[in-house]
C-alpha cells in the first residue's frame, strides 16, 4: 500500500516524529511504500540542518533524511509554517524540500492511507 504521513510536531519535544519514523520504517519493512511525509505546524522543525543533539541519542533530522534517501520518500515541509518558524532553504537539511500545503492534500488523494502524528 501507499502510505502518507503528516507530522505536526517538532523533534525531541514531542514523541510524534519518533513514532512516525518508527512507523514509517516498519511500513517499509513490510513492503509498503511511504509516499510522502508532510511536516506541518512545529513539525517543520524536523527539517533544520542546525540541530546538534547529544552524540549518544538519536539524530532525528538525519535519520529522516537517511530513510528518505534509501527508500525514496518525499519529505515535504510546508512553506507557510516554515517561514513562520524560520526554516528556509538556507538552513534546510538535505533530503527535505519546502513546498505548499497542496502537497499534503495531494498526498491524501494519492495515498491509500494517511496517518497523523502530533500532540
Amino acid at each position, binding site marked *: 500500500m501507499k502510505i502518507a504521513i503528516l507530522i505536526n510536531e517538532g523533534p525531541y519535544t514531542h514523541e510524534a516524529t519518533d513514532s512516525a519514523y518508527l512507523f514509517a520504517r516498519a511500513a517499509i519493512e513490510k513492503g509498503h511504500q511511504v509516499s510522502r511525509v508532510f511536516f*506541518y*505546524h512545529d513539525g517543520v522543525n524536523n527539517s533544520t540542518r542546525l540541530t546538534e543533539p547529544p552524540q549518544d541519542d538519536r539524530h532525528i533530522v538525519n535519520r529522516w533524511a537517511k530513510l528518505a534517501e534509501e527508500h525514496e520518500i518525499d519529505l515535504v515541509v510546508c512553506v507557510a*509554517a516554515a517561514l513562520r518558524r524560520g526554516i528556509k532553504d538556507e538552513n534546510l537539511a538535505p533530503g527535505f524540500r519546502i513546498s505548499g*500545503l497542496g502537497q*499534503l492534500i495531494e498526498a491524501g*488523494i*494519492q495515498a491509500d492511507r494517511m496517518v497523523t502524528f502530533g500532540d
Partner: protein
Amino acid sequence: MSEGQIKKFMYVNRKAPHGTIYALESLEVVLIAAAFDQDVSLAFMDDGVYQLKKGFNTKGIEVKNFQPTYRALDDYDINKLYVEKEALEARGLTQEDMCVPVEVLSRAEIGKLMETQDVVLSF
C-alpha cells in the same frame, strides 16, 4: 489512483483558538484544500467548538484575527461544518453563538460520519 478522483476529507478540530496555533493553521489547510475539488467536511469537537464562537477581538493579545476566514469558507464551497452537541453544552454555548452556519451533531453522529470518510486529518 486517477486524476480527478474525489475523496471525502474530514478535518477534525478539537483545540481552542489562540492558546495554540492549530486552529489557524488547520484553517489554512482547508482553504488550500478547496482548490482540489474534494468532498470536504469540518468537524469541531471538544474545545474546537470555541473556534467558531463569534466576536473574537484580538487587539489586546496583538495577534491577527483569523475568524473572518471561517466566513470565507462558503465562498470556496466549503459549507459542511459540523459542531459537536455535547461539546457546546459542556461549554455553555449554543448554535446561535457560532460565527457561521453549522450543523449540530451528537458525538455518535459525528462518529458515523467519520466512518464514511476516506481521509481524516487532525491538528
